[in-house]
């Protein structure tokens, strides 16, 4: 029964939860290595790093943020379709708090000047962020109440806010696309401290989620509820509170993603911010190795999943796939990736391990 050291490592690696998301990412990067010269070049400008790889993690950060929250929701056996709409709501709240004057029909000249003044904000930035996040958390709480306490199916319950949310976002901004001129706000999505600032935000939110789920019993309870909620109930786990927490945290993540996205384009656009991103977030979670049926989850896997999606997009652009064909090609790549997850391929990987052992 002695095993050689290398086969032991292989088995450990291939059975790890992160094996498949990392393999998927590696596969796409391998494709780039062969077909796109200079894809891996990283330049330094003013001490900051730039390049395609950096673009992947930077552009992928919105979906990564959504995916962190979505992971917990999916792990409880649910899904949150409203995250895109919640992003729009958070962005609208932030925009209004920075510059409510854009909504006014007529303004005295001294206020008129302020509208596109990059140093002006009505409320200090920390209040802007806190209030926007508070509103997003309330949205998540609403979803959680519907799912856990009113017992509406998650897909239906979150569909309500998905549809109504953009309407609410438009009400907040009076139906106007608001340009954001306040310069410090732009740093959230566009800032750079050696690496893109949004990457630090992802790391921060990941850290919160990780501590919340792995340093307390919450992670275990989420998984338990997702696998068998009746057994969990019999064991004294308050399944409703766990679900409420997951949806609320998902709302919080969507709020942050909304801030990052609006800062990126310096606009609060109730129609387009986060449009269809809920689907990318779900896909990221699935690529990350968390099952849609709930249970065991991997936060890091979901973040890598978000990067995989972004890597596909950037690689397609890099090899010259036109923008209109992108969605279709992306679909094909996603199918290939999901095939990689099938039991057959997993079995194949196990057999390789077994052969190495022999």
């Amino acid at each position, binding site marked *: 029964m002695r095993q050689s050291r290398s086969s032991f490592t292989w088995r450990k690696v291939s059975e790890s939860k992160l094996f498949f998301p990392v393999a998927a990412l590696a596969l796409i990067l391998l494709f780039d290595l062969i077909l796109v010269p200079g894809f891996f070049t990283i330049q330094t400008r003013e001490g900051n790093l730039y390049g395609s790889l950096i673009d992947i993690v930077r552009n992928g950060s919105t979906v990564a943020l959504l995916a962190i929250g979505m992971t917990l929701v999916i792990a409880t056996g649910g899904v949150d379709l409203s995250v895109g709409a919640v992003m729009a709501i958070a962005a609208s709240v932030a925009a209004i708090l920075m510059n409510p004057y854009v909504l006014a029909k007529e303004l005295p000249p001294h206020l008129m000047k302020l509208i596109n003044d990059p140093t002006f904000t009505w409320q200090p930035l920390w209040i802007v962020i806190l209030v926007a996040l508070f509103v997003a958390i309330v949205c998540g709480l609403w979803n959680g109440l519907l799912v856990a306490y009113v017992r509406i199916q998650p897909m239906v319950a979150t569909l309500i806010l998905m549809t109504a949310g953009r309407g609410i976002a438009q009400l907040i901004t009076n139906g106007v696309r608001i340009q954001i001129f306040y310069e410090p706000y732009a740093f959230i999505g566009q800032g750079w401290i050696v690496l893109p600032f949004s990457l630090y935000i992802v790391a921060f939110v990941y850290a919160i989620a990780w501590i919340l789920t792995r*340093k*307390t*019993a*919450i992670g*275990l*309870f989420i*998984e*338990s509820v997702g*696998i*068998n909620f*009746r*057994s*969990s*109930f*019999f*064991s*004294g*786990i*308050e399944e409703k509170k766990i679900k409420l927490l997951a949806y609320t945290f998902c709302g919080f993540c969507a709020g942050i993603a909304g801030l990052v996205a609006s800062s990126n384009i310096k606009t609060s656009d109730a129609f387009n911010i986060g449009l269809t991103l809920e689907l990318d977030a779900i896909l990221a979670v699935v690529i990350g190795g968390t099952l849609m049926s709930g*249970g*065991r989850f991997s936060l890091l896997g979901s973040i890598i999943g978000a990067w995989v999606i972004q890597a596909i997009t950037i690689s397609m652009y890099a090899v010259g796939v036109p923008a209109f064909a992108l969605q279709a090609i992306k679909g094909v790549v996603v199918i290939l990736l999901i095939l990689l997850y099938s039991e057959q391929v997993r079995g194949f990987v196990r057999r390789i391990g077994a052969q190495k052992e022999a």
Partner: protein
Amino acid sequence: MSDSDHIVEMQGIDKAFPGVQALSRVDFSLNRGEIHAIVGENGAGKSTLIKVLTGVEKQDAGMITIDGREVAIKSPIHAQKLGISTVYQEINLCPNLTVAENILIGREPRRLGSVNWKAMNAYAKEVLQRLDIDIDVTQTLGSYSVAIQQMAAIARALEISSARILILDEPTSSLDTRETEQLFGVMRKLKSEGMAIIFITHFIDQVYEVSDHITVLRNGSLVGTYETASIPRLELIARMIGRQLTEFDEMSQIKLESSRQIRGEALLEAKGFGLTGSIEPLDLELHAGEVLGFAGLLGSGRTEVAQLLFGIEKPDSGLVKLAGGLVKRFSPLASISRGVALCPEDRKEAGIVDDLTVRENIILALQASRGWFKYLRMQQQYEIANRYIELLNIATPSADQPVKNLSGGNQQKVILARWLATNPQILILDEPTKGIDVGAKAEIQKLVLSLAEEGKACLFISSELEEVLRTSHRIVVLRDREKVTEFTGEVDEHTLMQSMAGGGS
């Protein structure tokens, strides 16, 4: 091959799972027109052997021949094509479809391309009548008792193409005596029609009642195949567990000793306690250091009382006092913090969390009572898990094994460990020995008695009268969702059975 009577021959079957050698060089042969029992303790390899035969798992080594021809069984569907039909321990039907749909799903009679419902229902009814069951097949399966569901599963198995080999995996574990008899009638009838039946069970009585041959497995190896008539009961049990059965004697000794220590102090007092439509109001008292047995047929309200006491449902009449204090909040969590534990009847649905590891399953209730933030440190978790793995003799390669990889009896022990870890004062055990082997049964019964000896109170529910009699100091009899009577001290099986069945009939 040499013997033309053999319909199935399995030779030198090996099968390993991560960390477990589930089968090693097992031989098995099955004749036409016989009922062949496979017995063994938990983890003996019974289920795995069946899974290999039904194409669910592929053997690592060994040969299977059917009708003298070697076959490689590729999948459950392939097995069905070969004439092998299986009814698994856990019923794998859809409770929200009708009985007829469940029996004929995938093979619905059609007319002009659409399902011919009338013909389908009529046909399903006929199939069930062959098993002497007469019910409305247009009702959903879930609205019938587990016993009827089991029959529907058998009917479905028989309906699948030309079944010549029928495998019944623990078919009687949810059935009462009358239903079991009914099932045996069906089995004998099928046998006389030439069907080869593999019968897996933990009930030794039933093995002797119905089988022709017995194959004994232990720890994944074949102990032997015997003619039922030629092997005495005690010898069979000794072969199954590989040791002599002195434990039962030991147990009555423990019970005798512990009964002397029962104090007057009532841990639990319930007055007029009930829930409309579930259980009629009843009075109940539970003392420190005693085992209170619940006897009653399936559906008599045993489980309902247990779940009501634990707070799964909220009572709508009466009051409950725990250690003198009046209980106001009814929920599992509140019960756990009051020192009440419930080991539920339905292991798969309400017991284990199958993807979690043994360790996580064991600490689950304890952690739930500590709340979200007082998370047990990993080291403590392993300590607790390993302590109970040792104490209860749980057969698992490690505490990190997903609990779904364990055999049924070991899963049951994991759930028991989960509740023992919360250090309960009152332990409610609903069918704790259902579907587990003789050795483990004795272990669990012994454990119950030793807990009582420590001054805890146990409420012990079981369908096996003998077991209730052996372990309980006092027995409450339930019938038709009502408390009928209570026996203190010695009572014989006959009297008990009479009060369970009701005097009039």
